């Protein structure tokens, strides 16, 4: 199999539609007789849509449910509720066998370039393994040629295919992870904190690579990150998550130009800008408190204990994610 260079598509139907997704983890008590005494609502009613060829990012702080959402989309995490439609097919309840052809089309790049590559496999076999698993490896020559093609695609020298992961730097390892994700020529690539472990000079190389590959191959990205500067650089649209819910969805320019949800505003205020002049002019507003536990979320709007504008209503009613006149979605009573 070869890497397709997709034409810009005329297909307006979304590639992925996630509706009211929930992932709850049971909290148990007792050792011999385990009783369920509660649930961690890691993801609680999340809905979003990915258009073909775009980069949609889920951004938020630790424990907001962004990675769990990604795992659920890949069907690597059992759902408590909700629906996942990929390219027109409801994949929510597909059996593992029926899911297989879709696994080819949805691939993942992981955060940790050290932990996610098997140290006892050569780079050739790490990159080629998905081909073998899906019975697409062909004969030795085809296999080697495909791996070489993938290595070139991500900027690695094919001559290094016989080496082991420890012989590569962090940035090169992340390229290996990207090559493996591309081996099956997927439509959707889920990047979970794919550049977070890298030093800035290497991070820039990998970000450029991800943008090049998207353009060349027409990929759609679901990008999971806590880094707002990276998200702004890469994304077309962004969903901001807080405590298992999406609080705002908007295009990049709307979200960063005029954030509407008080949490989005607080996040942007907290991110320092690498310019002493700009920082000197900017007010340094800080919101109090920390993200509450997902096991005991506050009633009403999950953000109200930290919100500078909370109304009495916010303490009792959770606001729904609803459309504003400019097309963005915001979950806020204000």
């Amino acid at each position, binding site marked *: 199999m070869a890497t397709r260079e997709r034409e810009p598509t005329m297909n307006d139907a979304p590639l992925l539609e996630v509706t009211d997704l929930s992932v709850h983890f049971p909290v148990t008590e007792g050792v011999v007789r385990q009783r369920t005494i509660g649930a961690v609502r890691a993801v609680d009613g999340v809905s979003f849509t990915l258009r073909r060829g775009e980069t949609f990012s889920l951004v938020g*702080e*630790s424990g907001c449910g962004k990675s769990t959402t990604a795992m659920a989309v890949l069907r690597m995490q059992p759902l408590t509720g909700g629906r996942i439609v990929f390219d027109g097919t409801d994949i929510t309840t597909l059996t593992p066998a029926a899911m297989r052809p879709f696994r080819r089309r949805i691939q993942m790049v992981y955060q940790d370039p050290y932990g996610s590559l098997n140290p006892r496999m050569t780079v050739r076999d790490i990159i080629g393994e998905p081909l073998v698993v899906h019975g697409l490896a062909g004969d030795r020559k085809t296999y080697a040629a495909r791996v070489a093609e993938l290595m070139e695609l991500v900027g690695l020298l094919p001559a290094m295919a016989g080496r082991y992961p420890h012989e590569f*730097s962090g*940035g*090169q390892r992340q390229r290996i992870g990207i090559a493996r994700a591309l081996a099956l020529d997927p439509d959707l690539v889920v990047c979970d904190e794919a550049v977070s472990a890298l*030093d*800035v*000079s*290497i*991070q*820039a*190389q990998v*970000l*450029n690579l991800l*943008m090049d590959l998207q353009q060349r191959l027409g990929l759609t990205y679901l990008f999971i990150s*806590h880094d*707002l*500067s*990276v998200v*702004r*650089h*890469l994304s077309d649209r962004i969903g901001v998550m807080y405590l298992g819910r999406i609080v705002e969805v908007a295009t*990049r320019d709307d979200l*960063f130009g005029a954030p509407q949800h008080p949490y989005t505003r*607080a*996040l*942007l*205020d*907290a*991110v*320092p*800008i*690498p*310019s*002493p*002049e*700009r*920082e000197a002019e900017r007010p*340094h507003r*800080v*919101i*109090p408190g*920390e*993200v509450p536990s997902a096991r005991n979320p506050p009633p009403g709007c999950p953000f109200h204990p930290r919100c500078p504008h909370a109304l009495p209503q916010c303490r009792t009613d959770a606001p729904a994610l609803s459309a504003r006149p400019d097309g963005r979605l915001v979950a806020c009573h204000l």
Partner: protein
Amino acid sequence: MMTAPADQTAPLLEIEDLSVAFRTERGLVRAVDGANLTLRAGETLALVGESGSGKSVTALSILGLLGDNARVERGRILFEGEDLLRLDRRALRGIRGHRISMIFQEPMSSLNPVLTIGRQVAEPIRLHQGRSWPEALDQAAELLARVAIPDPRERLAQYPHHFSGGMRQRVMIAMALACQPRLIIADEPTTALDVTVQAQILELLKTLTRETGAALLLITHDLGVVARYAERVAVMYAGRIVESASARALYGTPRHPYTEGLMASVPSLTGEPRARLLTISGQPPDLADLPPGCAFAPRCPHVHELCRGTVPALQPATGTSDRDHRSACHGYP
């Protein structure tokens, strides 16, 4: 705990020609190589660099906290005029946690999990100020209140696992402030924290250093944090300081190609979205196998013959608004 306004001219800390080497399986690795650094009283200096650049080793050598396999090969670390490298363990203990204190990246692993928070915060007060436990605990409660930990009295009896990451880092700051230090060294103090909590902790550090007149040596890889909080910056690469200047001069007129490369490769909230980021080609060098000459030469877009043979010295830079701007580059005299 207010002190007189700090003298802005006298150097509080002067590191001169510091070299630190580690014995490893692959031979001697020089993690810090001829570093020079000056920190004035009350000033915030950021030490910036990527992993392995030597910034943390520099900090640990100030406190004499290097491991057994490390050796200071040469140099001086003058703190208030006294060479810390010549002090014996006992004298150094008198300074550590007293006049110089440190905040580490991982608040969980730097707190003892089996001792109460009160015991840990009160201990330096008891040791360095000779207070009784009840007195020290009273003072510990005041310190927790100062770093905005609610219900400080009740919190004293709790253990580190009862605290969130941000609250633990507040405890670390309370401990660092316990003895009114003149210098606080913070090694990536917010790297493990979420961004809204990072902002809280850094604002707190800024307020407290202002109030107490303590100088802050802030070790970080985050150029945004540097721009927001530091007055002066030193950039490290492969164990050497390659540039130092006021924050404004460093960001406005960088005088080293590595600094320029770093600035250009960071996406920011104000940059051009989706534009190609300028990158620094290649990888950071292997410290066990450094090239002769400038360590940045193999990645430098402006490299010439001289760079490959001779290590450039840190010298006053031209074309900058800062008189103390220094750069170690043959191309930027």
